[in-house]
């Protein structure tokens, strides 16, 4: 692909309420995933692996965690002399005062338009972060170029049972064109259907067309966000629908986030996501090797570096720098970076956020559909504090 021919917008403005407390202070895209990544790393890696060098990241709030993670973009090879990484925070209109909101009417999309104009790219791709995958965007571009419709969307065939009512699906024609993006609850899925076209929230079109869509939204005074505009574009133009066949996990609430982490403990899925020809990049850290002490047991699990494991871990995702003390038992859980688990403590079906300290001899237990969640930075030393911490 010619340098600079495609630019990318990764949109971190996504529904986050169902993922609280994990998303209280971070956008969905900054959720830790898979032992050492953030959700944002997956679309960003897809973008990098396609040789795209003009990347804009829009975030709902201040974006502190986003800029802390991305910094200059060096870890993704985005600190180049041309193009590079552009950050665009404060896009969540719910957090904007009415008088400020008034000034945004007719200007809400200005930054995106400017970014796209300056990129001088022929095509643009828009991606969200709540669909974990490893997609070949070069193949998507080829698919788009071979067809006539101005927009190309992406879908993955999934079992309708796994979708939540608020998840969106593509309405496909017999010829494989998408005519609408609709919520599963509204979609007429036949009872006999074994698969449904899950929308991957990825859209490709010519940059000129995208600029036109954004300028039109500005003229109308729309403050509806990129996702809504893309859905409208699909309805308006009909769209090519590209089928993605790799690993995908949809993250829209706590149990789906939990399930996605558990899914990659399946060796075949783990390899499909991380060991394809397209690498997943993330911010690198100089962590020491993980130490597994005498008598520790660590089975069917992932682990980041910097850890110190003395207890028992089974079927869990353990992030960087985690301390698991002697006699503790971790099962079917997600333990994020910097967390310490006390001796003799049992953790099962739980999501423990970053830098949590859990005292000895406690029991933390959730269920696969309702995992127990411990918010970031909590210190828990009494059994009564376990539920109160959420």
């Amino acid at each position: 692909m010619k340098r600079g021919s495609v630019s990318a917008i990764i949109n971190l403005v996504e529904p986050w309420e169902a993922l609280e407390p994990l998303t209280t202070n971070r956008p969905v895209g900054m959720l830790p995933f898979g032992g050492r990544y953030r959700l944002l790393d997956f679309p960003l890696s897809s973008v990098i692996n396609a040789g795209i060098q003009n990347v804009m990241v829009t975030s709902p709030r201040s974006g502190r965690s986003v800029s802390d993670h991305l910094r200059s973009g060096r870890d993704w090879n985005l600190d180049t002399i041309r193009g590079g990484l552009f950050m665009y925070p404060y896009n969540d209109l719910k957090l904007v005062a009415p008088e400020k909101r008034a000034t945004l009417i007719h200007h809400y999309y200005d930054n995106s338009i400017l970014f796209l104009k300056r990129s001088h790219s022929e095509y643009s791709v828009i991606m969200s972060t709540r669909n974990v995958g490893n997609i070949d965007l070069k193949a998507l571009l080829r698919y788009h170029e071979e067809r006539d419709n101005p927009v190309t969307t992406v879908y993955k065939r999934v079992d309708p049972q796994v979708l939540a009512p608020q998840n969106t699906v593509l309405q496909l024609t017999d010829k494989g064109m998408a005519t609408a993006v609709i919520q599963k609850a509204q979609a007429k899925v036949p009872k006999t259907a074994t698969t449904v076209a899950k929308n991957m929230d990825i859209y490709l079109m010519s940059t000129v067309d995208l600029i036109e869509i954004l300028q039109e939204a500005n003229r109308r005074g729309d403050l509806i966000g990129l996702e809504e505009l893309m859905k409208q574009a699909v309805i308006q133009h009909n769209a090519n629908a590209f089928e993605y066949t790799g690993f995908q996990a949809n993250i829209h609430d706590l149990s789906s986030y939990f399930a996605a982490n558990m899914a990659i403990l399946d060796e075949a899925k783990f390899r499909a996501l991380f060991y394809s020809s397209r690498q997943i990049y993330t911010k690198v850290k100089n962590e020491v090797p993980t130490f597994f002490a005498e008598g520790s047991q660590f089975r069917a699990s992932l682990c980041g570096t910097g850890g110190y494991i003395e207890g028992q871990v089974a079927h869990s995702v353990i992030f960087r720098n985690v301390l698991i003390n002697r006699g503790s038992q971790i099962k079917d859980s997600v333990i994020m970076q910097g967390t310490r688990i006390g001796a003799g403590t049992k953790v099962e079906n739980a999501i423990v956020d970053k830098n949590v300290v859990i005292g000895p001899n406690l029991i933390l237990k959730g269920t696969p559909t309702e995992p127990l969640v411990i918010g970031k930075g909590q210190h828990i030393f009494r059994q009564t504090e376990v539920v109160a911490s959420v």
Partner: protein
Amino acid sequence: MNEDMLGIILAGGQGTRLGKLTKGTAKPAVPFGGRYRIIDFTLSNCANSGVKTVGVITQYQPLELNAHIGNGSSWGLDGLNAGVTVLQPYSSTEGEKFFAGTAHAIYQNIEYIDQQNPKYLLVLSGDHIYKMDYDAMLDYHKAKKASLTVGVIPVTKQEAQRFGMMNTDETDRIIEFEEKPEHPKSDKASMGIYIFNWPTLRKYLVNSYATDKSMEDFGKNVIPAYLAHNESVYAYAFKGYWRDVGTIQSLWQANMEFLSPHNRLNIGDNSWRIYSKAQVLPPMFLTETSQVNNSMIVDSCYVAGEVDHSILSQRVSVGMGSRVVDSMVMPGATIGKNVVIDHALIGEEAIIGDDAVVKGTATDIAVVGYDEVVGVEKP
């Protein structure tokens, strides 16, 4: 922090005593401790000490070392007014530029050093495992108004026979230097760490190479010359963990010590991090059948077998039914099923076929070389 001191790392040693492991790679580039290479310790010490400009002098097999060091960004040595330069011999109009010894290597790179114009020259070797604040040593050097300060470490009488020994007076001024003495008079062994006042050293080197060309080696020639000319030469005592990893036995031993949670090196200390070239790799995956005890494992390892008191570097896989004991496995090595690895160093990208046995003893470590294939029938 100081801008006056230029660091020079002598990373040229072929390291013949490491045998197979350094056939295609320079000793400082040999993997250590699961995710490091030997030179990371010296480079990180420079970065942490505020030595911002570092020249790395290479000679043998510089490819891997060059690839590892890159522009120095992994150690944060790529900022404004900072940088790592890999210096290699090149033929001059007068002919050969290969280095006859440590001091000769400095002399051959005099143009680079002059370009940096340092007040002090910090000379280091790239093949030791330790953490040391060179800035504190510089403070000592300045306080003593020294012309040369030599880092020393206490050794036993027996060990002294392998080192250059510094005999000092009560002010720590070095009054005598003995190379590998049979009957050592002190316990102060040279660590091969020197701080020179550059203009003085420059004068000695230039004079020597204009006349008798005697200044080949710091230990053999330069220190004796300094002492003979009554230069103020001081010993700076280092008290921390320090290991020379120049032999198979010592490399294995230092790796085993690294594995101990009680290792005085304290690798987990965040105030003095050891940096390395970072690779983006997936997390380690330990399967249902894995058994890991007293071991260190890093990114992208896959373990289905048993690992006991061993270190696995990046991208190592251990198949089901295999047992890795008291060993260090270098990056990318593949260990098949039902393999026994015991008291061994396994080289990078080596392949150990199913049912193979690689077994050494505590005094005779088994070594599998880089890219070596063991126990796999050729098709």
